[in-house]
């Protein structure tokens, strides 16, 4: 294993050297200058902050152990910093007082913040310097983490949002277990059929039980082919306002509210774990979540778990598709050049097909490097968990446009929390859907204004 990893490293170097265009794409400007010189000796120890818990955390530590054992120049020390939100919060304070780690795993929506903070070394710099080949990487994933065609961070754990459903419950309700619903309307129909009440009128099984999670709303906007924020979802230029309070946003909320009011959608609140538990326990027959939780559900559910593509509007907009989820790795500029070099060495190791294959086998995140699928381990796993191919196929089939690239906002964590509050107010009947959308948009636009003014 060790030798193979080293070999893989060498091969990728050679391939990159002999290969064609540098992986970054854009021929315009070479960012090599931003990276330390090629001959800088990597530091002996670096720290990596991550947010992987439970099974995923174990898998991550396994990879790091293997890296540390495979060579004696660099030791990576991992630190679990809690949820993605907690990690970003900690990183923010650490950066302000020069206590940041060399490597940090920051979630998808943190990318604008990270880039605009000026505290990171864009991965493009290292790619340009070493002529690192990224042609085998999933384009959708790379595009998400690029800004103006420069890769800012290295995608590490990539997931997709999918529909999970209870095949046994489908059968019991007379539905074809191999044909999950794909549109909003179909989800509603299926959910009505799957809702079961007991003698006293209490619902024992709900048809559909999505948690109030901002990411799910962002994905629904993407499958609707709609932008979340302006200026090309913040990717053509800095976003000035959010635009989700249009007809697509209204359609999503109307559909969701009707379901909850009608009693066939279950509302677990903002607790994602609660939604997963409800599904695993059979309380809801379908729900939407990240493909990263598929492994856990398959393990603990007592029924057969099926996966379907993420719901989209009945009109099936051609521009609709999925945004990738997960997180990526950032190298901090405030660390000495030696540490940056060491961090890059580790990243290269982590992106080798064998490591990527092992990572996805152990977690459920899909490989960013396509060659990983050729690994025997990957092939075995695809046979064992055929449900998983849904997620990665969905990503590959998504059209690549601004809507499916996802919105980039410096205040995205706040935006996500605000949409959660918006959905809550609608489901609780405190506001009509359009009013709630407008209120959220107004508040966010204020926040974006403030952010843009303060962080030029």
């Amino acid at each position: 294993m060790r030798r193979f990893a080293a070999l893989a490293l060498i091969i990728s170097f050679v391939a990159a050297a002999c290969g064609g265009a540098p992986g970054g794409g854009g021929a315009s400007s070479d960012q090599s200058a931003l990276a330390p010189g090629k001959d800088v000796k990597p530091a002996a120890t670096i720290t990596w902050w991550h947010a992987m818990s439970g099974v995923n955390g174990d898998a991550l530590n396994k990879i790091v152990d293997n890296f540390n054992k495979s060579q004696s120049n660099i030791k990576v020390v991992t630190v679990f910093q809690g949820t993605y939100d907690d990690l970003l919060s900690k990183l923010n304070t650490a950066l302000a007082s020069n206590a940041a780690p060399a490597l940090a795993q920051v979630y998808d929506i943190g990318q604008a913040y990270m880039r605009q903070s000026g505290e990171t070394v864009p991965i493009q710099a290292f790619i340009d310097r070493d002529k690192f080949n990224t042609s085998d990487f999933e384009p959708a994933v790379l595009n998400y983490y690029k800004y103006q065609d420069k890769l800012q961070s290295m995608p590490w754990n990539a997931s997709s949002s999918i529909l999970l459903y209870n095949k046994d419950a489908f059968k019991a309700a007379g539905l074809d277990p191999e044909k999950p619903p794909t549109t909003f309307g179909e989800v509603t129909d299926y959910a009505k059929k799957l809702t079961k009440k007991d003698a006293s009128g209490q619902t024992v099984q709900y048809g559909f039980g999505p948690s109030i999670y901002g990411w799910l709303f962002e994905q629904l906007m993407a499958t609707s082919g709609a932008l979340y924020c302006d200026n090309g979802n913040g990717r053509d230029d800095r976003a000035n306002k959010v635009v989700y309070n249009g007809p697509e946003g209204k359609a999503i909320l109307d559909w969701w509210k009707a379901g909850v009011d009608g009693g066939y959608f279950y509302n677990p609140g903002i607790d994602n774990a609660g939604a997963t538990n409800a599904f695993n326990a059979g309380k809801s027959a379908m729900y939407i979540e990240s493909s990263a939780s598929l492994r856990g559900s398959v393990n603990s559910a007592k029924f057969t778990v099926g996966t379907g593509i993420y719901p989209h509007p009945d009109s099936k907009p051609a521009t609709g598709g999925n945004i990738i989820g997960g997180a990526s790795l950032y190298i901090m500029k405030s660390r000495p050049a030696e540490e940056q070099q060491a961090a890059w060495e580790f990243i290269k190791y982590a992106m080798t097909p064998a490591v990527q294959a092992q990572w996805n086998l152990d977690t459920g995140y899909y490989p960013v490097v396509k060659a990983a699928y050729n690994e025997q381990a990957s092939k075995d796993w695809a046979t064992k968990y055929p449900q998983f191919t849904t997620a990665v196929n969905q990503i590959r089939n998504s059209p690549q446009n601004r809507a499916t690239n996802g919105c980039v906002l410096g205040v995205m964590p706040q935006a996500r929390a605000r949409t959660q509050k918006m959905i809550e107010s609608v489901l609780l009947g405190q506001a009509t859907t359009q009013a709630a959308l407008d209120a959220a948009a107004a508040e966010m636009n204020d926040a974006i204004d403030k952010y843009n003014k303060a962080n030029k």
Partner: protein
Amino acid sequence: MRWTARDARSLAVALLYLGPSFLLFAAFVFIPLGRTIYLSFFYTRQSGAISTFAGLDQYTELLTSPIFHSGLLATALFVLYTVPAGIILGLVLAVLLNQRLRGINVFRTMMSSTIAISASVGSIIWLLLFNPSLGLLNFVLSLVGISGPQWLIQPNTAIIAVSITTIWLTLGTNIIVLLAGLQGVPEEIYEAAHLDGAHGARLFTRITVPMVSPSLFFLLVVDTIGVLQAFTQIHLLTRGGPVDATRALVYSIYLDAFQNFQFGYASAQAVVLFVLVLVLTVIQFQVIERRVHYQ
């Protein structure tokens, strides 16, 4: 009044004793407070560094913000729901525990055990109790025919849920202080009252309550200050939701500083919270403390 050499010397001696405490207070309380007040007059970058001067703008924005108003409401509700109920419950239980029975200490320990439980531990336990599918609370309620609400999802029940957790956490302190207060009441007073024909409720309101009023007042002040700063329960149970129903001022400060990275704005809120605590405490001392009966 002029300062004599003696005055100066006695002050100097006193400062030697007070020095260590004051040094620490200066370094970790007063100067940081000053810095925070300073920060509240500036717009800040996401890193916390100063960006541009805001003057009083952040304060006016705050005072006209609906989130701030609902935060004040949430804070007021928390105080209202937890402090009186917690003290009354504590008093009732303390009276119950103030009996001469063998083995009473076991019961005392059991009931005051919550003083040893941290807010995080307590909140995690109550999180399990409030859980809609696993929680015992709704199951027990269903046994008596009440269909329990989804505690942490409905706004009004969410406030009550956080309040219940807070009352439970402070119950230990309340019981201990009130029990000590009750035990400080001399037997002779009760005997004299009995001779005068007072018993039961009359005895309670005319004798017991006034005699423990110092303890009651102490708890009023301490519990109020505590609830105004209670962060952990909100963070672990509701994260300020649903729809900001439990987003008390203290939690709002956390969100604005650590989720939204608006340190200047958060600092303004911190200053407001500080003034609020100050004013409330002064009011309590000026208005209520007069009615406290000291022996």
